């Protein structure tokens, strides 16, 4: 039951590794990771981070690579097709739909952020980014993306996002239309090394900044690194009366964290002079008892590696039967980790700290750090025009390699479900994603649409898909058979203890992470306190209903319904597989 269309494939092993790594390396490596690490304990966060890498990152990654290649051998490349064929049960196709919804819906807003990066790179190159304060940079960002009101992001000037969005949208579809090897692979082969070289240049610049603001010598790179990496946090606590019971309790001051001898000495003086203040050291062990830290670390590993995303399973389906997946998976993972920990962890936060100190960077979030703090930092830095351009061009390359990967699962799905060729599927996907992107860009006020879609897709759907995949690998296919599949043509072997991890620990870990997320972010409970506080996403939907938030959830549901209908009536005809040995 094979069609006459031969199966497309990757051009080389390094090509697919760079493509998968490119999919994983994105804004999160340079902006989200440093912020999360600093917020959740610095060095202590790294312990949980590496534990999560071993317990969920690598296992799901290897499972996805193996399942994808196995499905590809049956001539199928879409997540529904692959899950249906590797389990031998067509009903699993419906679970596989999640692996198409995620990348397609994320693309709708990711390409918008990609346009911000290009716009910032171009404006830095033009020399028109000159900010004295973070507020000025924030005002520029707000105007650039139309944050004040819906429909205000559609301008086409140099300082508006519309024109850049059009360019990046066409650029993505031009590359995806060229296909796997001449489009995605070729671009990633040049973009990934360029990205790493740019990141190293910026790293050297940041590490040699010293203390750039003469009036604040305590704001220096070394203290910035300390804020990011110190395993022990030094925090000023304040004694307050509990509103409900009137009992006294100690709570950390909002900007109470201090780093470096000078800040610590000042804080000690304040504490000595005021009996309601106390300087406390929070050790690594204490921080590791905080469930929120583990949730943040697992989430970062998860989103950073793009596991449970629907991309790896599709990418690896284009491999040949005896192409290695174990080393390739590890290589793609390590490339992402190098960019995240080795480059991102040493660059963005210390740079912001050196100019603004702890209050300027703490709790800024991904967009705050990336599009408010850093543009101001670069415009103040010697050679800032070049380094600002280099940084945002780096982010642009990272974003393109990621957004490209989000299109291939949709292309493969439409080809299989509707039995159409690439040209036709590119056209349909182009229309669907353009409509979704127009929605996100139109509802730009407070980045509500973007934020809502991101929250539900990444926190809910990605974890669900990853759990499904690891359960299929360990329980439906069976762990022994799963390892056999993974080791076919493998250049290295997965250590034996991963059988236990992949069968028991990873699914359990994922279920616990999901449960903890549901407990805190959906039900509103807080670990360690009786206080109940709903997240803004729940408030937007159920407590103070917000039109943009509801429409955003509607976009996800509509996309899911469309894909489900196509799956129900889908063809899913296998393509001919051209194996080298059989040619």
């Amino acid at each position, binding site marked *: 039951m094979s069609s006459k269309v031969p199966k497309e494939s990757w051009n080389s092993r390094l090509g697919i590794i760079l493509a998968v790594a490119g999919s994983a390396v994105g804004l999160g490596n340079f902006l989200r990771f440093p912020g999360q690490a600093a917020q959740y304990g610095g060095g202590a966060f790294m312990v949980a981070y590496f534990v999560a890498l071993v317990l969920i990152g690598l296992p799901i990654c290897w499972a996805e690579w193996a399942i994808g290649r196995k499905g590809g051998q049956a001539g199928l490349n879409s997540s529904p097709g692959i899950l249906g064929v590797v389990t031998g049960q067509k009903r699993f196709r419906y679970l596989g739909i999640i692996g198409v919804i995620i990348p397609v819906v994320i693309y709708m807003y990711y390409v918008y952020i990609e346009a911000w990066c290009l716009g910032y790179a171009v404006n830095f190159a033009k020399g028109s980014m000159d900010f004295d304060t973070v507020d000025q940079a924030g005002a520029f960002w707000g105007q650039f993306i139309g944050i004040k009101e819906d429909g205000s992001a559609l301008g086409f000037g140099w300082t508006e996002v519309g024109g850049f969005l059009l360019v990046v949208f066409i650029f993505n579809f031009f590359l995806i239309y060229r296909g796997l*090897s001449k489009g995605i692979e070729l671009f990633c082969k040049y973009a990934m090394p360029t990205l790493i070289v740019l990141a190293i240049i910026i790293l050297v610049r940041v590490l040699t900044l010293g203390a750039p603001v003469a009036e604040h010598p305590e704001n220096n790179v070394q203290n910035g690194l300390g804020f990011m990496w*110190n395993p022990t946090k030094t925090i000023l606590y304040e004694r307050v009366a509990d509103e409900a019971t009137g009992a006294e309790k100690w709570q950390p001051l909002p900007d109470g964290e201090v780093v470096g001898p000078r800040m610590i000495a000042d804080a000690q003086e304040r504490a000595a002079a005021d009996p309601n203040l106390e300087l406390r050291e929070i050790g690594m062990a204490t921080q590791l008892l905080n469930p929120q830290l583990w949730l943040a670390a697992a989430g970062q590993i998860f989103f950073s590696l793009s596991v449970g995303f629907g991309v790896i399973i599709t990418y690896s389906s284009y491999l040949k039967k005896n192409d290695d997946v174990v080393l*390739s998976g590890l290589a793609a993972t390590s490339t992402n980790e190098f960019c995240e920990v080795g480059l991102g962890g040493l660059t963005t936060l210390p740079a912001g700290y050196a100019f603004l100190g702890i209050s300027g960077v703490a709790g800024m979030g991904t967009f705050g750090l990336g599009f408010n703090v850093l543009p101001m930092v670069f415009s103040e830095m010697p050679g800032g025009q070049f380094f600002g351009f280099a940084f945002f061009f780096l982010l642009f390359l990272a974003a393109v390699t990621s957004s490209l990967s989000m299109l291939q699962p949709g292309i493969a799905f439409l080809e299989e479900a509707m039995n159409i060729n690439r040209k036709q599927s590119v056209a349909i996907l182009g229309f669907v994603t353009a409509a979704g992107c127009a929605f996100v860009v139109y509802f730009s006020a407070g980045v509500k649409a973007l934020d809502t879609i991101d929250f539900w897709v990444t926190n809910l759907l990605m974890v669900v898909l990853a759990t499904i995949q690891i359960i299929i690998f360990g329980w439906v296919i069976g762990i022994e058979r799963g390892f056999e599949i993974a080791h076919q043509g493998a250049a290295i072997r997965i250590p034996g203890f991963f059988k236990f991890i992949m069968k028991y620990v990873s699914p359990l870990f994922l279920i616990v992470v999901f449960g903890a997320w549901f407990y805190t972010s959906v039900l509103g409970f807080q670990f360690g306190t009786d206080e109940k506080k709903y997240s803004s996403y729940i408030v937007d939907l159920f407590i103070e209903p917000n039109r943009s938030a509801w429409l955003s959830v509607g976009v996800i549901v509509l996309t899911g319904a469309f894909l489900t209908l196509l799956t129900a009536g889908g063809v899913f005809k296998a393509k001919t597989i051209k194996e080298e040995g059989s040619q």
Partner: protein
Amino acid sequence: MTIGGWIIMLVSTLSVTGLFGWCIWKVLTTEGEDEKVHGFEIETPDKD
């Protein structure tokens, strides 16, 4: 930056850099890699 901070930073960054370097070296030097390089002629057969 405390001593603990230096240790965690160096261990973290050097271990991921070492793993990255080893993986790339292993990929580029694994025997038989050339056999897995495919021609450009089959890259997008579904385009037509």
